């Protein structure tokens, strides 16, 4: 057997290989279909957009095992002959003597490396660090900001920082630098944003999605979609803060001051991975600020019929993607 056939057989003849290949394919189709649906239906609400993106991660993790349970013969020649798309045809193809399956292998290896370097190691490091460190005792409470809500504290630092600590006793910390730079309304909006994170974390959907995403460490589509889900989460919390304070322009102002320059960053040439990350982050901040500046208390309907139709179509197409 040639290398292309051997590698192609690994991806189409073994359960693990089929899972790797089909998870990628299923999530790609789900991402394209969900992205199209969001545009066609004019969906602006980040909560609904997040649901569409969540569907992509779910498709990546669960489609293949569920379909195999429905029909264990999905990998067979009969099934492949009638499939909408048969990955074996591409994975056993050679272009200029190089099997295309090599490129697929390289892609999943690169994605795994990015996941390890940019997500897993930093998350583990951050968790370990957070356990060792406690907040400085000098942090002073900021009373009267969130009556009945989590405690708000100011810690000594010139950097412009605000973050929240989850858990049994959630708390919000802002730096003294931030307190000096922002006006009172902007400070209140930033705190409301952090409080929204704490409130939403009571149902730790993001943590559950992260675990699903870990299972898809090799899948570039899952990597991209998970980052988008996190970005939508920020916009959801922006919305909650804007509604709670009634001053979206204050949060926009705070964002502009905290991320000064980020939203105006332009891509450099030649691009490095870091530049792309920075540029993408800048675009995200810019879109958050723009959204808050043209704030109208958005259409927060669940859009369940649109969601159901899109997911049904994705499930039907993916069933015939092998």
């Amino acid at each position, binding site marked *: 057997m040639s290398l292309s056939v051997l590698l192609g057989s690994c991806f189409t*003849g073994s359960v693990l290989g089929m899972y790797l290949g089909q998870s990628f394919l299923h999530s790609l189709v789900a991402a394209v279909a969900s992205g199209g649906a969001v545009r066609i239906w004019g969906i602006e609400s980040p909560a609904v957009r997040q649901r569409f993106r969540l569907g992509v991660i779910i498709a990546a993790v669960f489609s293949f095992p569920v379909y195999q349970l429905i029909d264990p*013969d999905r990998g067979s*020649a009969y099934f492949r002959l009638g499939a909408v798309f048969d990955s074996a045809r591409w994975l056993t193809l050679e272009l200029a003597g190089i099997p295309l399956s090599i490129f697929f292998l390289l892609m999943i290896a690169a994605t795994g490396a990015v996941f390890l370097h940019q997500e897993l190691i930093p998350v583990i490091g951050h968790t370990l660090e957070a356990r060792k460190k406690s907040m400085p005792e000098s942090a002073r409470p900021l009373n009267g900001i969130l009556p009945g809500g989590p405690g708000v504290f100011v810690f000594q630092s010139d950097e412009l920082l605000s973050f929240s600590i989850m858990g049994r006793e959630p708390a919000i910390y802002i730096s003294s630098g931030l307190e000096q730079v922002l006006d009172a309304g902007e400070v209140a909006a930033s705190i409301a944003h952090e409080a929204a994170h704490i409130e939403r974390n009571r149902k730790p959907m993001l943590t559950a999605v992260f675990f699903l995403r870990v299972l898809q460490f090799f899948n570039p589509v899952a990597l991209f979609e998970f980052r988008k889900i996190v970005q939508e989460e920020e916009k959801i919390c922006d919305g909650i803060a804007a509604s709670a304070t009634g001053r979206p322009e204050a949060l926009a102002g705070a964002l502009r001051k905290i991320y000064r320059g980020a939203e105006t960053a332009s891509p450099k040439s030649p691009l490095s991975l870091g530049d792309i990350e920075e540029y993408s982050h800048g675009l995200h901040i810019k879109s958050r600020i723009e959204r808050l500046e043209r704030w109208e208390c958005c259409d927060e309907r669940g859009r369940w019929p649109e969601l159901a139709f899109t997911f049904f179509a994705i499930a039907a*197409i993916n069933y015939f993607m092998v």
Partner: protein
Amino acid sequence: MKKKFLIRAALSVAAIAALVVFLKTLNWLPSAIEDGYMRSYADVSGLRLKSGIKDPHVPSYFPEGLRWPPSAILAQRRPYPAIIMEFNGTKRNDVCLEIFQYARGGRMPAEGRIKFSEIKEKARYALKGRPALLEAGVCGGEPCSRITWDEGTYRMRAVMKSPPFELIRVAGSMLR
């Protein structure tokens, strides 16, 4: 509002249809670049000449109830060599014999067109000296049997709507 919804619904359906057409085109593209993917052949000589598989195993013994030539022949060289041959009955139009020839390591379907509703007996059998697994059972209310063995680089399986006796003769006639 309702009109806008309907337009968007129609656009969604059109977008999904466009996606399916795009995927179908992508699926066809490799066969335009290289041949060897699963396709059907009109007859056995066509299979021998065009499939690139040098040693297709075809039975030379046919009991009375089976019709020659095969009603369907599917074969591929990629990702691994495989042949599926189906034979209809003389007095009936459904598949009565199926022969699978798959490269070992390939993914042979657990069942083809003839589906077992119950397996009543399994036995080891020496098919012209080759160790084989013989199974007898019921398919849609009528007796059927199948035999599986390894032949060189291939795994072979013959499934027939008949008791094992005729199947063994058919399978034996495929071997030299």
